[in-house]
């Protein structure tokens, strides 16, 4: 199952632009899944944080995001605050014909965890720091499919900032617990090394280093859909944001869960009747 009609019947409100809304059983499933991921975060006593929908463009530029993934960036655009320029109209194809745009200074959140590193800029840590956050993430996908690939989707992340050994232990534990969670929910999964979709990969230091020193592993559902990933950043964010430990930039790592993709996997594996879905209590 998991066709659009089935998903709509259990609460999907799909926009052809590649965005999903939820009601009824699917909304309850989304909440249950996030609560389950939060219970994983609680095992590290990860502190919950809440951040806005956008990041300053210059901040993402410092991280090399706009150079590495320009094809995925989504920008909030406003009209220039000049009265004569505030007129606009919607064309027959649904596009808005803008007059003059205000300067674009922000990027809609591409990954939830970026906010966490920025929020702790300049801090000196005395021990490992565990954080968790959830955000709506935006990426310019060419082809969209409900719950599987969307232009906006929900990402829950758990992050560890600390010594190299602490981030390595965190990732090892995260993989084990994500495995356990999928198994308890009856989802067949496997792990595979992965690379991010870098722009011009042949000349991208980030892509080439991911080939040479695998730092990203994806949790794949039976049909190859990535439900989540574990990522080792080494000192990339520690250096970029001046977060230190014992006088040196901290290492960081994260585990990321795509909520809509877990929803797809549950509905695909267990069918459209919510009565057959695994109970959150069991997974928790």
């Amino acid at each position, binding site marked *: 199952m998991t066709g659009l009609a089935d998903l709509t019947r259990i609460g999907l409100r799909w926009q052809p632009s590649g965005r999903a809304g939820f009601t009824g059983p699917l909304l309850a499933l989304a909440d249950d899944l996030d609560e389950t991921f939060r219970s994983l975060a609680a095992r590290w006593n990860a502190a919950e944080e809440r951040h806005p929908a956008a990041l300053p463009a210059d901040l993402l530029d410092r991280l090399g995001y706009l150079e590495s993934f320009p094809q995925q960036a989504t920008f909030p655009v406003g009209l220039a605050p000049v009265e004569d320029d505030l007129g606009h109209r919607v064309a027959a194809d649904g596009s808005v014909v803008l007059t003059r745009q205000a300067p674009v200074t922000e990027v809609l959140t591409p990954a939830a965890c970026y906010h966490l590193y920025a929020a702790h800029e300049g801090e000196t840590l005395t021990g490992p720091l565990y954080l968790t956050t959830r955000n709506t993430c935006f990426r310019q996908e060419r082809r969209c499919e409900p719950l599987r690939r969307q232009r906006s989707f929900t990402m829950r992340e758990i992050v560890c900032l600390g010594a190299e050994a602490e981030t390595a232990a965190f990732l090892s534990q995260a993989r084990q617990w994500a495995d356990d969670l999928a198994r308890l929910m009856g989802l067949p999964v496997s792990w595979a090394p992965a690379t991010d979709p870098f722009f011009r990969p042949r000349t991208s230091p980030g892509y080439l280093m991911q*080939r040479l020193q695998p730092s990203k592993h994806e949790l794949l559902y039976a049909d190859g859909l990535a439900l989540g990933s574990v990522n080792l950043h080494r000192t990339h964010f520690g250096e970029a944001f001046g977060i230190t430990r014992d006088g040196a930039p901290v290492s960081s790592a994260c585990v990321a869960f795509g909520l809509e993709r877990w929803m797809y996997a549950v509905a695909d594996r267990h069918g459209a009747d919510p009565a057959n879905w695994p109970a959150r209590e069991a997974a928790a």
Partner: protein
Amino acid sequence: MLSEPEIRTNLRAWVRRKSAADLGADFGDGTPLFEGGLLRSIHVPELVLVLERLRGAPIDVEALAPCDFQDVDTMIGRFFA
């Protein structure tokens, strides 16, 4: 086509030019380049181009594997065998 000793000399000279570290006499063909902190990720694209120029053939970056750039010895075995 350069001889293997010439290729090794070229590679060592390139690493010495690019590395921020002060490479002494103990820098050799078995010295870890990235693990040892001699090179960073920013150097990788240019290193690929250098290797392609030295061997006179393109490198399929999709086929790169962990440790291909471990040290000069490894690169000689991987890209010039």
